[in-house]
């Protein structure tokens, strides 16, 4: 293995680490943030569909019930997130992993 190969290998390693570093520091938290936002909107959607679950009578739940068969994942995730939610601040800052 000559010098140029070793330099090439080293550069590849640095590039990989740099990408990983950037990913961990910038892009992943950013995407996580977007995903969180999507989840929050989805929660709002489910709540708007089924306010009866909180004892708020809704004139549309007769119709939104038609969506239930297609909302399996959403429904489960929604319940999970409801259990898991601490404060609003904690939820919004979760991607920083303090």
């Amino acid at each position, binding site marked *: 293995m000559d010098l140029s190969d070793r330099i090439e290998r080293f550069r590849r390693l640095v590039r990989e680490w740099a990408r990983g570093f950037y990913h961990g520091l910038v*892009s*992943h938290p950013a*995407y*996580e943030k*977007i*995903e969180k*936002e*999507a*989840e929050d*909107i*989805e929660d*709002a*959607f489910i709540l*708007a*569909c*089924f306010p*009866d*679950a909180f004892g708020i*009578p*809704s*004139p*549309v*739940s*007769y*119709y*939104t*019930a*038609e*969506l*239930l*068969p*297609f*909302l*399996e*994942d959403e*429904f*489960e995730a929604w*319940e999970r997130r409801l259990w898991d939610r601490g404060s609003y601040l904690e939820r919004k800052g979760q991607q920083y992993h303090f």
Partner: protein
Amino acid sequence: MEPFVFFGGKGGVGKTTVSCAYGVKSARAGLDTLVVSTDPAHSVSDVFEQSFGDDPQSVQGIDRLDAMEIDPDTEVQRHLDGIRQSLSDQVSAAMVNEINQQLEMAHQTPGAYESALFDRFVDVMRESDPYDRVVFDTSPTGSTLRLLGLPEFLQGWIDRLMHKREKSIDLFEKAAIGNNEPRRVMDGDPVLNRLRERKEFFEFASGALQSDAAFFFVLNPDQLSVNETRRAIGEMADNDLAVRGLVANKLTPEPDDDEDGRGARYLRDRVATERERLAEVRESLEPPLVAEIESRTAEVKGSLLDEVADELAVETAAEAPTFVG
């Protein structure tokens, strides 16, 4: 006149009688007519002395006339069963229980009856093809008004739901880095599809109600009934629906002039009061009074129905539906 004719009014004023009489009148005029009743008391069956179910059935002895009775209980159950069916096709067994709870709750809300009736109404209007005229005998005023106000209200709601759903899917798609599969995909999303179908359904409903339906209120010549009619006309206007005319029913017959017994005096007094009420109706309510029907001493059935039909000065000629969805 419009192909769909609705008769509404306070409980007990004679909506069913008037609807059936108008159905008979339309049928005698040569129109293929369907009378639809939503009254859980099955009064249409009593008028024609024949039992009707959920599917149109021809009325014996009257050509071109069919009738059907919608039972809200059955409709709610049918809706529930439909969802249960697709639930068991789509959802894992573990979640079925969880979701079933939601489902039952949704079908016990106070609005479920109205929604079920409304759905069926709209279905009947959509599939009114074999008939020239469909006459709706509606349930008492309050719930009918809520029913007719539904499409507008629900359209707004569905729009908001669709907007939320689109936004969250959009974000999920953006959050899928590199070759990751996004958690939700906009293309062919079954929830959005379902919401869109519903939206179209409500659009058809409000279009048909606005442009292909005529509304009449039946009232009795007493203060309560007149007051309720006035309120109802106001609420209809709030929903952008015009009331075509009013039918005064159960008018007291006037005694002959030479009679002066206790009964005759009673009748004369009543007739005087009722005239005042009717004068009030003519002056203060906008829709014209299209018929004044006297009380009968027996239940209105058979040949009496024809008599009442003759007293109904409502035109029968039907236009084809303009709003076809």
